[in-house]
């Protein structure tokens, strides 16, 4: 793409120095900043996880006090969900969606700048609570009332403020993505020609603008309970702690799909690229994504099977949850069918994508088991649940992000990453993640509750193994950082299309990407 030169082109380049990053409205700059912020938060949340696993290495008081342990589990969850996974997907959306649909930038570039730049302050506020009197949030990432309201530490109001800022950022980001996809597709880029990453993000963005206001309402009610002596969640004043859980999970279940639908999009780009064969069942992939998103609004109380619901409610939420296995299964079958008859090579993005398919599916299986209400009485709030959602989030969402980063890194930087080191990173992560999380199924089934800093002796062996796996996984992410920085600094020059089978408009552009792309819309064949 060569832009036609015109008079006011000169000031379109980036501003000089650090100020460039503050005032930028360029989707690539903002996308990159989202990704760096998310990686920083991934390392911070990972550091908290290392504290957790070090404490659980053996039974007894070994490292930190229970008060601090609870802050670590809470902050680990909050930082990973809101700081690592969500901003990473928003970053990829910012960077890639305009390129994939042939748009020059996001539709609302100034809003884009704002939605990014309020985020670092949200996390600054959140992390600063650790240094406040009474400590940071210590009530789990699900912050159930009344533990988080009547019994919460004084810093809870700062936690609420930071969550409000993150929610506002997400809503702005989601609106921007919807408007961009709706209005800025290049001529000829019809709905059913859009890459699946664009489709999954469109649907995710709708989920975001539907549930983030629910979260905002929920934490505002909390704030009133804490500061204005209302009793939304206080039984003594006529409120109900269960109201909190219904509202939280009405937000929370779509939220977990917000963290996995864009992953489906990334994997649906990578597997066809390295199988050199078009994605099997494109249309059914789109419908399956939409079906999962719609169903996500009708399953929330499967997180609450033990709170004492009537039989009919349990049955409804059990069955609605089981049905989600159907569209999810369709996706997995489609990926496998894409591989059949292909001509496969196994570069690093493909390795991560294949690991995603296998390990995410294992997480899906345990999810199906958890849906069975009577059996959930035994699984609920044990390490079996911890193993389940880490399987869908770490080798699920996080592996898809890493796959995407390796896939598009040559496009972003113009350099190839070090293939050998990246393979080491993959295998260390793959082994680490399984050694860390597979044994957690066992201790969970054997009866170990989650969120405990100390445990009976019967759980000691598997916990030690799990900790060792977690340390290996943590260590391997430092290697990831090194590989990415090394690639940004230099390396073998990347071609415009470094992956033989890659499809999509982004590969028609030169590597590295020029600062402005598609100032004139591309032709869609």
């Amino acid at each position, binding site marked *: 793409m060569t832009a036609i030169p015109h008079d006011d082109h000169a000031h379109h380049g980036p501003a000089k120095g650090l100020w460039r990053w503050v005032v930028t409205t360029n989707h690539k700059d903002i996308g990159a900043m989202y990704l760096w912020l998310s990686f920083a938060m991934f390392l911070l949340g990972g550091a908290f996880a290392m504290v957790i696993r070090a404490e659980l290495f053996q039974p007894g008081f070994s490292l930190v006090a229970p008060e601090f342990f*609870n802050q670590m589990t809470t902050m680990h969850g909050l930082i990973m969900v809101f700081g690592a996974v969500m901003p990473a997907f928003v970053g990829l959306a910012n960077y890639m969606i305009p390129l994939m649909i042939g748009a020059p930038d996001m539709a609302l570039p100034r809003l884009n700048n704002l939605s990014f730049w309020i985020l670092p302050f949200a996390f600054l506020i959140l992390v600063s609570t650790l240094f406040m009197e009474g400590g940071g949030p210590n009530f789990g990432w699900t912050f159930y009332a009344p533990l988080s309201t009547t019994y919460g530490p004084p810093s809870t109001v700062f936690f609420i403020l930071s969550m409000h800022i993150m929610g506002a950022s997400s809503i702005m980001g989601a609106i921007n993505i919807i408007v961009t996809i709706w209005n800025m597709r290049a001529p000829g880029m019809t709905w059913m020609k859009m890459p699946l990453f664009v489709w999954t993000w469109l649907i995710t963005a709708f989920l975001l603008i539907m549930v983030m206001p629910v979260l905002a309402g929920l934490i505002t009610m909390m704030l009133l309970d804490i500061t204005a002596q209302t009793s939304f969640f206080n*039984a*003594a004043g006529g409120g109900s702690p269960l109201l909190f859980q219904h509202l939280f999970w009405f937000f929370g279940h779509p939220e977990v799909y917000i963290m996995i639908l864009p992953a489906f999009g990334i994997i649906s780009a990578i597997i066809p690229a390295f199988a050199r064969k078009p994605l099997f069942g494109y249309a059914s992939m789109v419908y399956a994504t939409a079906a999962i998103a719609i169903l996500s609004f009708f399953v929330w109380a499967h997180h609450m099977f*033990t709170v004492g619901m009537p039989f009919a409610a349990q049955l409804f939420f059990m069955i609605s949850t089981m049905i989600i296995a159907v569209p999810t299964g369709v996706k997995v079958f489609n990926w*496998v069918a894409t591989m059949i008859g292909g001509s496969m090579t196994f570069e690093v993005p493909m390795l991560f994508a294949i690991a995603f398919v296998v390990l995410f599916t294992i997480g899906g*299986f345990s999810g199906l088991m958890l849906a069975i209400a*009577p*059996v959930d009485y035994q699984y609920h709030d044990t390490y079996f649940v911890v193993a389940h959602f880490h399987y869908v989030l770490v080798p699920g969402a996080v592996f898809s992000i890493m796959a995407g980063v390796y896939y598009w890194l040559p496009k972003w930087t113009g350099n190839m990453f070090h293939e050998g080191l990246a393979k080491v990173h993959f295998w260390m992560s793959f082994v680490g993640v399984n050694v860390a999380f597979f044994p957690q199924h066992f201790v969970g089934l054997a009866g170990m509750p989650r969120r405990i800093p100390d445990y009976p002796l019967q759980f000691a062996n598997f916990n030690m193994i799990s900790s060792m796996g977690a340390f290996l996984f943590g260590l391997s992410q430092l290697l990831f950082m090194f590989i990415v920085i090394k690639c940004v600094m230099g390396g073998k020059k990347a071609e415009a299309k470094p992956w033989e089978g890659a499809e999509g408009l982004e590969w028609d552009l030169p590597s590295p990407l020029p600062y402005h792309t598609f100032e004139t819309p591309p032709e869609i064949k």
Partner: protein
Amino acid sequence: MLKRLRPLSLLAAVFSALSLASSGALAGWETNMTRGVTEISHEIYNLHMMMLYIVTVIGVLVFGVMFWAMFKFRKSKGAKPATWHENTRLEVLWTVIPLFILIGMAIPATMTLAKIYDTPDADVTVKIDGYQWRWQYTYLADSPDDEVSFFSALSTPRFEIRGEAEKSEWYLLDVDNPLVIPANTPVKFLITANDVIHSWWVPDFGIKKDAVPGIINESHTTVLETGTYRGMCAELCGRDHAYMPIVVEVVEPDEFEQWLAEQRGDTAAAGSETLNTAGQ
């Protein structure tokens, strides 16, 4: 030696090793859910195993096909890519077949769920109150004077937790006053909490019920075998969440009656003492 073993007997050996592991012969390496000691816990265990077998078979099939594809359709083996990318019949098939599998799972699950909700009249009713960080058990009676109530808290000594002494067998799973209930008798639990949400969980009974302030939840059990059964609080309830275990002694009904009468005697005596003091 191994060569002479038939594959079938080898398989049998592996399975018996696995079942040994799951029956607890290898302490500390338990990998599975307990079968428990109630009819409900047995049904839950069977459902769990059914689910585990079904997802394992599906997993082996799906991953098997995927790994076959990964070895067969490699570029390095000269595989030429095909261009097909749709097959309506196949797509309908793998939407419909899972639906039938799900129906097959949902039917027994619904039956067990219905059984859990189909509650018999209880001979003994115990009110369970969650506190930060101990449990209070109250045996309800027709007259409040006959009620028996006591707290049950962790009895593992602090120096074991701090690592200043060797940890005992039931580290973190011992309490000062266990709950005592009769075997083969329907028992009703009324579960609530005094401060934050707790969750009363005894895996061997197949009961996990949240203790929510302002709400009284109901659970029923009929324990088939006498013995000591242990569990832990299953809902994060603050600093000492890990330190509020549950211990239930299940005894023969006549032994239970005797125990309860003793407790009533104690409380009655204690009550009259208080009255006497008040009278003076």
